[in-house]
């Protein structure tokens, strides 16, 4: 398991290893699951209150399905840790944050200064994505 390099939560990291969606659906007590790009995040919706950690795997950063998975989960009310794992690169970080990710475990560690700059990059945003940030249109008409 790759270490979490960036985490925007105050609670403790979940202790249980994440299992596949299939394995998770067969168990009654697992608290951590890993979503692959082809998995349907909506399969997890009945179990959100017992989940502490959902990992979303990006085998290649150019496969963007994980962004939609993240938003589906957050829009359904998931408040646990949402962790991006795999081929997570600097230039994704701010977009992943906007889609609800709050932990990052890149398989190749990222340059701290570049990552910090990427997280801070956008002072304003054009869209409402449920991440709590006010969209530009809301500021214009606030």
């Amino acid at each position: 398991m790759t270490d979490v390099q960036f985490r925007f939560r105050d609670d403790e990291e979940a202790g249980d290893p994440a299992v596949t969606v299939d394995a998770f659906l067969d168990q009654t007590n697992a608290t951590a699951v890993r979503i692959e790009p082809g998995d349907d995040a909506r399969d997890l919706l009945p179990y959100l209150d017992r989940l502490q950690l959902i990992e979303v795997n990006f085998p290649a950063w150019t496969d963007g399905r994980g962004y939609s998975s993240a938003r589906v989960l957050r829009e359904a009310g998931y408040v646990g840790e949402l962790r991006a794992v795999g081929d997570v690169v600097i230039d994704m970080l701010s977009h992943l944050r906007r889609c609800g990710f709050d932990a990052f475990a890149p398989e190749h560690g990222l340059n701290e200064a570049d990552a910090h700059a990427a997280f801070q990059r956008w002072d304003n945003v054009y869209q409402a994505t449920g991440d709590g940030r006010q969209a530009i249109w809301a500021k214009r008409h606030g």
Partner: protein
Amino acid sequence: MYKYDQYDQQMVDTRVAEFRDQVRRRIDGSLTEDQFRPLRLQNGLYLQLHAYMLRVAIPYGTLNSRQMTLLGDIADKYDRGYGHFTTRQNIQYNWVKLEETPDILADLASVEMHAIQTSGNCIRNISSDQYAGAAADEIVDPRPYAELLRQWSSFHPEFLTLPRKFKIAVIASETDRAAMKLHDIGIQMVKNDKGEIGARFFVGGGMGRTPMIGPMIRDLVPLDQLITYSEACLRVYNRYGRRDNKYKARIKILVHELGKEEYTRQVEEEFAHLLTQDIEPPLAELERIKAMFVDPPFEAGANDDLDLSDPDFRLWVERNCADHKAPGYIVATVSLKPVGGIPGDASADQIRLMAQLAKDCSFDELRVTHAQNIVFPHVKKADLYKVWQTLDEAGLGTANLDTVGDIIACPGLDYCSLANARSIPVAQKISERFGSAEKQAEIGELKLKISGCINACGHHHAGHIGILGVDKKGVENYQLLLGGSEGADTSLGQITGPGFDEDGIVAAVETAINVYLRERKNGERFLDTYRRVGMAPFKEALYD
């Protein structure tokens, strides 16, 4: 025209800083070319056969003179003194240097321009009707809706790594001048029987190797749900569009494989859910944008007569001008297709001259058309002769709009790393073969479109005559298609049969035109005759 506020300006400035940082990481080796490629593409920077190419966004094809002037200056400063206007209403520079691109972007940002999402697997620059705001037949100006969508789609965090590129067009009249149904999403602004304006959605059109006409999936989306509905369309695509084969990754394949009904059902389900998520800008935001697209101050009672005693001017007016909604005004198109020229190319001086003319005689506005020409949308008829004379002296007075000389062509193998065959020399030869005004007058409206590979950037499927360059065992070969169209009567061209070599395809076009001239009945265009008589007489003349 839309004017940036502090937020819009900050967004493009931030993008310049971000891209500068990405270029720095590429040059210092922290990014490999493989890692850098998707990043530079999202900023319109391609690595072509000979150099980097930068594609600059011209949202819905609208420019002011200050922006147009800068496009000319960039051509001089960073390129070889010319630019190439594209079928997506953008401009490309073919000879830029990687290390200079952040400076080009900074120059662009100084006039409220950018290269954001002009390439890559994301939502591209949004195109529209080049006559928007001027056309006599439009219900509303489509551009405010395009601008609302531009802001929504810019850096949309969920949709930056889609299965494939995603193109949206917005129109607002029955006459479709933007090939709307050949886009991933085509939006037609319509008025229902209660007089309410809404957006009709066509999803899953496209050209490329599997051309499809987009089916309508929603008759009317209310204006206060436009963004939410678009987001639903995109989310279904992002989750379920194919990623196993890049040639089957466009949304048209998803819509086709699921079927229009099932795709629509999934979108409506997602839409119902997203309506609970408060992601829609208030109507006040649309009103704010619309206020920037009000009509320019047309002179009431401007003289509606034109002196057409100069026959060359008369020809140009008849070919290149269109009706304007305001009396005394006219829409004038500048053809970037001189006989033997490269379709869509303009020199830095020509670009600046058009900017100056727009400032003096078209309320400071220009448009780029998907047919690679430039429009002055609001010319007072009293100024038109002077405008034409100035254009003509600069080599921009060609009177051939929508004729066989007004060819759409992609850059082809002369520039493009994807191409199988050259497009430009074929366009030049055909343009020369039919260059005379008499010949073009005899033939009338004939849209000829050339692509140098199956990706169809030259829209060959939608040409009355289409030409597709292919690679046949290492030799350039050209297929001929007939009967395509992109208007309200969109249709896809059919291949005539075996392909031709470079000279052969020029002769084949002439043969097809001769069949038309022989077969046509009163007032028929090439397309009408083809639709009436079918492929057989053309095939016979071409191959027997």
